[in-house]
């Protein structure tokens, strides 16, 4: 949900919360959007930090798995497939880019299944696109909150864009887990090294060594840019406020909470904990916004609009379906076609979210 561009001032859905500045409502927003990072910390960190892993071992298909990891991992992968309920199930969205919604995913699926090169490149790209995409989800929510205050859609847009990159991607680039990200993405191309290809050696040996040696410079660059930029950001908004800009306290809290959690987990926790926290709240926010915007359409799609319990059952179907997909993609998938489908879904999620949430086109 990277591109919630606020070209049209009032959001089309005039919910009771519109005047209050919330997207959906005070409680819903506080729990599922603004407070989602804190919720993720409160759930994930104690779950993995305070309890013994042996308590959560349970045999699935004859293999003992850590059910905490299975649950969180499935939830994270589940939100990826949720994008199709917006892009393909909503006919109005689908009609805006039919080529992107049909030919491109089919071509990518075939390409990833047929070529280990494309599979590897797509897998590596997905890891970094995920970081960028997650940064811009917070940016998108912030812009909607600004629109709720009837601010100009251009006011502070670039500032917000860079601030969200600093808050979300900054700790990844500057933190201890930067090399984990690098290694994880390059592992997708491991077959190149095994083939003794010069590109494989360059990617798998020379590049990580170079990045590791010079990571200090990267950290310094991020800090040298990030800290003055934060001051410049605050000063710019102070100036904007004097020119009539109305501060959205929801956006302020969203940035404070997201930034604090990002720095806290990437800086002070293990890679796995940080990855789970950041992706957990990202997925939770995504489920919240998709359900809010698509519930009526999805209730019709699931043929439940004639039933009094229709919305609840629709939500149940979606959650169950997405979780099953998440488990399949995270723990069950095998073979080139299955893996190709999982990678294609991830890439499509990151890509589609850049253009299926345009407020300017009254899409949200």
């Amino acid at each position, binding site marked *: 949900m990277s591109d919630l561009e606020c070209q049209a001032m009032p959001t089309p859905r005039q919910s009771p919360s519109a005047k209050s500045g919330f997207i959906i409502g005070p409680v819903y927003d506080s729990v599922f959007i603004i407070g989602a990072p804190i919720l993720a910390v409160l759930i994930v960190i104690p779950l993995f930090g305070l309890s013994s892993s042996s308590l959560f071992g349970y045999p699935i298909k004859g293999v003992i798995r850590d059910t905490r990891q299975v649950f969180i991992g499935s939830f994270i992968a589940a939100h990826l497939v949720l994008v199709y309920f917006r892009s393909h199930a909503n006919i*109005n969205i689908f009609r805006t880019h039919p080529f992107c919604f049909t030919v491109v995913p089919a071509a990518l699926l075939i390409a990833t299944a047929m070529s280990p090169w494309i599979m590897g490149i797509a897998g590596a790209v997905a890891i970094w696109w995920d970081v960028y995409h997650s940064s811009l989800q917070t940016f998108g929510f912030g812009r909607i909150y600004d629109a709720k205050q009837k601010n100009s859609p251009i006011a502070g847009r670039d500032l917000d864009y860079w601030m969200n990159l600093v808050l979300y991607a900054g700790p990844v680039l500057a933190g201890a887990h930067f090399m984990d990200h690098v290694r994880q993405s390059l592992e997708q191309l491991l077959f190149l090294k095994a083939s003794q290809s010069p590109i494989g050696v360059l990617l798998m040996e020379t590049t990580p060594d170079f990045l590791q040696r010079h990571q200090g410079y990267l950290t310094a660059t991020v800090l040298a840019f990030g800290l003055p930029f934060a001051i410049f950001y605050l000063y710019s908004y102070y100036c904007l406020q004097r020119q009539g800009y109305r501060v959205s306290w929801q956006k302020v809290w969203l940035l404070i909470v997201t930034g604090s959690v990002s720095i806290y987990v990437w800086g002070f926790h293990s890679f796995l904990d940080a990855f789970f926290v950041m992706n957990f709240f990202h997925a939770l926010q995504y489920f919240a916004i998709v359900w809010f915007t698509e519930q009526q359409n999805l209730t019709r799609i699931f043929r439940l609009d004639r039933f009094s319990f229709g919305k609840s059952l629709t939500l149940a179907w979606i959650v169950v379906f997405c979780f099953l997909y998440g488990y399949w993609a995270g723990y069950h998938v095998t073979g080139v076609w299955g893996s190709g489908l999982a990678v294609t879904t991830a890439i499509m999620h990151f890509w589609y979210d850049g253009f299926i949430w345009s407020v300017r086109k009254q899409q949200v």
Partner: protein
Amino acid sequence: MAGLAKKNDENVRHDVAGGLRGRWLDAAFQVCLAWFMMALTWHLLGPVPETKFDYFLQLAVLWLGYAFSIWLWILRSRRLPLVCIPVLLTVGFVATVDSARTYDASFQVMIPAKVRDGRVIHDGIGLSYALFPGCQVDLQPQVKRNIALQANGNPTAPLRLHLEEVARLCRIVLAPRSQQNDDSSMVIQLDVVYDRPRGLSSFVRRVRDFERSLVSRPKMRVIRSTHRSRIAGLDTVEFEYFNDQQKRIYRQVQLRAGQFMLNFSLHYVDEADRPHVDEFLNSIRLASPKGIVAWLVGCELGMLR
């Protein structure tokens, strides 16, 4: 948003069959969807059935739930033409056949190999290789059960390889060159691991991790780290290390066969045995045709693809 909802009303048909009939069809769709979701949950998370009949029954229940859901859903849709029904059913059927084939393969890999015309033939895998004259050979499969199955497994069930289990399928011992030194024999062992690699990089990663786990032990030294090779026309990944304690050279050659990884472990003392190792590896052959027929029919025509 109001405009959006109105457009959706126009485009998502829910009144192809109006009134009471439409409501009943919608209710039937919910029942079939619940059936499908439960069957899918059972299939993904439940215990793997121990017999083929139980597994195929599970797949049949899943496919029927899927088929009825698809049929009822498209029947009531204005957007999707009816031709989508056979297309989606075919996609589901192919996925079901693939799952059945994989399950069947977990039995097939455990079929003991046979010796015929101086070659060891694994009918279940669709693989054969030469046997050296005068060697000792043990073709009785031996499984190292995983922990969960040691506790809960059914000992009377047919022999099947479970997820993350390793089975030794063949062990060949070539007589030592010198009668004085029994330790100088060359040993070839074929193990199969049910490991489900996702793709080529994932397969290479597992071989590399295997290499790391072996050479992290004391007195182990890598001679050649994990690399791709091509043996007898097959894509393989291999590495070589030296065990200082046993004074033996180990060559680990791995092939991917569907969801299984085949590991040829060849170890010897004398460098002069190296040509024998190469000769053995070059004798590996696929015993059955590949292609779409093999893919659909499955293990009877060989698993390697």
